[in-house]
């Protein structure tokens, strides 16, 4: 396959390819299956949008994903479920260790979540519509059958985006996204990828394809001899005798993140001595972009269109974080590192670097190569807009604001959990001290008592400026891991019958 159009977009849920930015209204529902037969019947005709590009923007779209509990409720056999990763099977709150790593401690601890801490709802249904169209779309979707099949567990708040990509703190969001190599053209040889590239193997985002290691991520494969229903599923590329339940599917990671917008701007205002320019500058340092999304680094990198100003840079020439602090949120979330530290010119210098020598900077090469840790972000924000100028007022209107953080990835552990743990939460990221992510950090001290609630940046003279005692700006309200199947797998799910013993051998 060498053409993007050769990709099986007709089997792919659209969210993997589009953000549905043009569909500004959303309704995200967490559902439980209450009647299996009716749920299957509803699923068999549900108009789930595929990844095929329509000639014009559709009026509505619908996407669906299932938790492990959901797959069990729909009587998917245990053999299939066991083929998924541990992270999916045992979930986001699977152990204290997992919570420690994700920063779900202190005020973020699952015990105070609004949902997802005891039982993860079975189904996540994502509805999208053009401005003003969501209520009608929801009414259409929630027909009689639907109401008998599912119970609404939680309606995740979202707000009409009005077409902009502003998150509640007031920053343009969703700028950095990997470009997926749908044409499967790019080699995955590690020795060809010294520098950062935004082009990513399809297998990093879609199950059933080669990932950045040139490998197929673990997933359930079915022997069609034992399960006749599986006949219509795609073949497994790495073993054509087996059917691939997960091909063209992916994991969907959902976290409901509350954002304290007045708290954020009031803190910044206080430490900036109420000087608007200073406040704005500090906020940009913390985020790593200005509010309109302009990066703090100007540079052209190969592989990214010159027009894509928001992504046309790496941090290679800013090793100390003079322009963009190392701890800045976007620098942590995507450090834009290549496989080797910068400065490789030929075979010899490559060898020198592989052996660990030739580093000018002591803190060089501390951050992992980015291409193994990318995620596709598809979140939507909620809550009434509040500008920084309003937010700094002592009587700023309090309201529930935040982000329904949604990301897609083929490997929860290596992608989402790694980014959250090693890059976002880690107070030692890139050789830093006492700093966690300025926006998302949980601010809990280390076991040794060392603080993690600072934010440091360099002033124009290169002197380190410390901002201490950052309060919590973001609180986790819930979360869960879901599987977003390909459309043929969805057909498989809906065509099981309650005896359902197709795959028991």
């Amino acid at each position, binding site marked *: 396959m060498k053409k993007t159009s050769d990709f099986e977009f007709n089997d792919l849920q659209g969210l993997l390819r589009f953000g549905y930015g043009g569909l500004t209204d959303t309704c995200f529902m967490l559902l439980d299956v209450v009647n299996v037969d009716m749920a299957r019947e509803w699923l068999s005709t549900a108009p789930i949008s595929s990844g095929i590009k329509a000639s014009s923007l559709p009026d509505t779209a619908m996407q669906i994903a299932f938790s492990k509990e959901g797959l069990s409720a729909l009587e998917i056999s245990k053999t299939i479920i066991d083929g998924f990763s541990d992270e999916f*099977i045992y979930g986001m709150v699977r152990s204290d260790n997992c919570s420690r*790593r994700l920063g779900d401690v202190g005020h973020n601890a699952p015990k105070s979540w609004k949902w997802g801490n005891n039982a993860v709802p079975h189904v996540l249904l994502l509805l999208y519509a053009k401005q003003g169209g969501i209520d009608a779309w929801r009414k259409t979707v929630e027909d009689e059958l639907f109401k008998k099949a599912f119970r609404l567990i939680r309606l995740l708040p979202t707000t009409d985006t009005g077409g902009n990509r502003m998150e509640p703190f007031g920053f343009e969001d969703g700028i950095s996204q990997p470009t997926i190599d749908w044409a499967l053209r790019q080699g995955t040889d590690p020795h060809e990828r010294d520098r950062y590239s935004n082009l990513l193997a399809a297998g990093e985002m879609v199950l059933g394809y080669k990932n950045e290691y040139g490998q197929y991520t673990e997933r359930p494969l079915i022997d069609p001899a034992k399960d006749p229903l599986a006949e219509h599923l795609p073949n497994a590329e790495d073993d054509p005798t087996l059917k691939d339940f997960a091909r063209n599917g992916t994991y969907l990671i959902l976290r409901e993140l509350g954002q304290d917008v007045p708290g954020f701007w009031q803190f910044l205002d206080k430490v900036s001595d109420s000087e608007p320019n200073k406040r704005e500058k500090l906020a940009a340092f913390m985020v790593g972009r200005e509010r309109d999304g302009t990066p703090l680094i100007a540079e052209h990198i190969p592989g990214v269109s010159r027009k894509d100003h928001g992504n046309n840079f790496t941090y290679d020439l800013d090793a*100390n974080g003079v322009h963009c602090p190392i701890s800045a949120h976007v620098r942590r979330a995507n450090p834009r590192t290549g496989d080797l530290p910068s400065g490789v010119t030929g075979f010899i210098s490559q060898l020198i670097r592989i052996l*660990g020598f030739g580093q000018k900077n002591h803190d060089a090469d501390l951050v*992992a190569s980015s291409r193994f*840790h990318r995620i596709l972000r598809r979140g939507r924000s909620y809550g009434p807009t509040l500008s920084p100028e309003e937010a700094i007022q002592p009587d700023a209107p309090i309201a529930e604001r935040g982000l329904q953080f949604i990301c897609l990835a083929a490997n929860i552990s290596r992608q989402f959990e790694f980014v959250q743990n090693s890059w976002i939460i880690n107070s030692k990221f890139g*050789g830093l001290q006492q700093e966690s992510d300025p926006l998302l950090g949980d601010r809990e001290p280390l*076991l*040794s008592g060392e603080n993690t609630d600072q934010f440091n940046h360099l002033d124009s*003279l290169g002197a380190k400026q410390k901002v201490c005692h950052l309060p919590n700006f973001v609180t986790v309200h819930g979360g869960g891991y879901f599987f977003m199947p390909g459309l043929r797998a969805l057909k498989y799910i809906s065509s099981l019958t309650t005896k359902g013993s197709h795959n028991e051998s």
Partner: protein
Amino acid sequence: MTPQSTFMIVATVSVGQLKKLRDLLGAMNKIPGHADPENALIPFCKFDQLHFARFVIIEANTAHEIREFGVNPRPWRPALAFLGDVDGDMHAFLADLVNNAEPGLKAIFSHCEDFSEENLDMLQWLQAHDIRPNANYVNWLGRTVKQIREEVILHQTLSRYLQEIAHDVDWEDIRTVRQKLLSHVEMEKHKGRLTLSLPEPTSREWKIRNLFHLLGVPLILLILSPLLLIALPFFALRLRMLERSDPELFIRPSYEHVKVLSVQEDWDVSNQYSVFGDVKPGLFRLLTFKFILMLTNYFARHVYNRGFLARIKTIHFARWVFMDNNHRVFFASNYDGSHESYMDDFINKVGWGLNLTFSNAVGYPTTTWMIKEGAQREHAFKYTQRRHQIPTEVWYKAYPGLTAVDLARNSRIRQGIEIRQENDAEIREWLRLI
């Protein structure tokens, strides 16, 4: 300079004692797998020369895997291993240990065979049960626990003071800022709140032995080089044959096993790792393994002793040890970050090095030419390393909260106190460390 040394006391656990031993060791912990530094059995905090220590019950959970090679597993009885990394001579440490914790040691090792309290010379017993690593890695040769602790205080002192004066100084006049800091250090030293001890003189015996090793290994290799050169084509041929025929085991570790391991992890910035498995059958694999570890040890000792092991800067100490008459191998390390990030480093930064050594162990993913593939077969690799990992019952780290990068930075801050920077740019760089 005080060079570091290691110890590893190993004894087979007596029949029927395993559970009792595990409970006893568990009682030394404050949180799962992490020693209470002041625990009554072995109060680790009393030993100023001890960097890391751990108790591991070595069990051959994966012994059956060698059947894939058509070989019957050798019997293995669970063994207790007590290992650690110390400043200076390990015999001196063991003596100190016996002086301060003999009853605790007795209580622990009494669960082992070949241990009777009558007429027991504890020190002799420990020495008799010590086994030497085939390769050993020390992040920074000569950096003592004492130095680490002094430099932490120096860093904290400077950091606090800099914050205090930040608003009152003229940052354009960077030399005056430095002078203020230097004076403050002198003042704190004078008040006895800060000490920066000079390194101890390096022992002459160690220097001579080190020099012999430094020159001896290349010399022997040089002498043997004609033979090695002749053997090389045969080696390559045999290697490729084995790489094609060796079974690759693709077995996912049970979640129960993963849970037991992960309950001990990520409490602090560093974690421990203990892994145990079989050497692939046959003399070829064993000799290759031994040769590679000999080289690993050589490079770790003479080249990679300044804060990095190839591209990895997160490992504090690591060792490779052959056991069971060279049929099995044990690897232990102390690293910064999460297990997942450690594996990321293993695959993406030093996959080639890992392949060279562990491709000779049962269960390791298939390599080509010993350096390619292997660890990059991501799932096979992550499964096999987790499957072969064994829990560490008790783990002690003398400087919680500090990564190897932190330690290196603190030493650079100290250097800046002792050696004046030459220009303003260097002064600013130094100040940024604080």
